[in-house]
């Protein structure tokens, strides 16, 4: 876990990106926004998956793009919720 984030996606973000869960090298990424930028640049599917309103969570708590991240964090991206 030394340099790793776990990324999870749900619903449209999962289907369009094609990846429901992946490990991601923390490297120089300091915030959720940095991760979003790298994922959007990864390939067209990720660019499309993150192109609408995307909600972010860190360690299963809602957060904003400027939230700082650290090695071992679980970061999730998903669309607005539609349960009930």
């Amino acid at each position, binding site marked *: 876990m030394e340099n790793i984030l776990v990324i*999870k996606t*749900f*619903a*449209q973000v*999962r*289907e369009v990106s094609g990846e429901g869960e992946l490990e991601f090298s923390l490297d120089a990424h300091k915030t959720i926004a940095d991760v979003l930028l790298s994922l959007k640049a990864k390939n067209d599917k990720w660019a499309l998956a993150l192109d609408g*309103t995307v*909600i972010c*969570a860190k360690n*299963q708590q*809602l957060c*904003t793009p400027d939230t700082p991240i650290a090695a071992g964090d679980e970061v*999730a991206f*998903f*669309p*607005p*919720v*539609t*349960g*009930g």
Partner: protein
Amino acid sequence: MYARIVTNDFSQQGLYDELLAQAQQEHAGAVGAIVTFTGLVRDTNADGTIDGISLEHYPGMTETALTQLAQDTMDKFALRNIGVVHRVGRLHNNEQIVWVGCCASHRKSAFDAACYLMDFLKKSVPLWKKEFAADGEYWVEVKASDEHAALAWLTPKEKD
């Protein structure tokens, strides 16, 4: 109090009895009003007929968010007890999706609490609904009337 994510169908009587028994254990004789809400799968959406839905959730976070919402609602409306159950997975038309029960001393609190919980559940619990239409499967989009959903979602603990 209970807040659960389940895959199997649930029993009205079972949930009601559990809710009331918990309430009576701590507040015997003080429950004057119980309001329940049940959501069911309808067979149509704005575009036509559908053949059921599928509900995806974020294991772990969904349970936490649902529990937090139930606790917040109980505190905010001074309820005697609250219970909420939400199903996930593939559900057919007419099946039960969600159940909420609120026990209070007086009926206004019970009604207001059940409305409040359902409003916030639809904005703040990580659940996503897909509908099965004749020509394919479609994720339900957040409606224009829910345009502030993301904002509400980001401040689920605000009190008003």
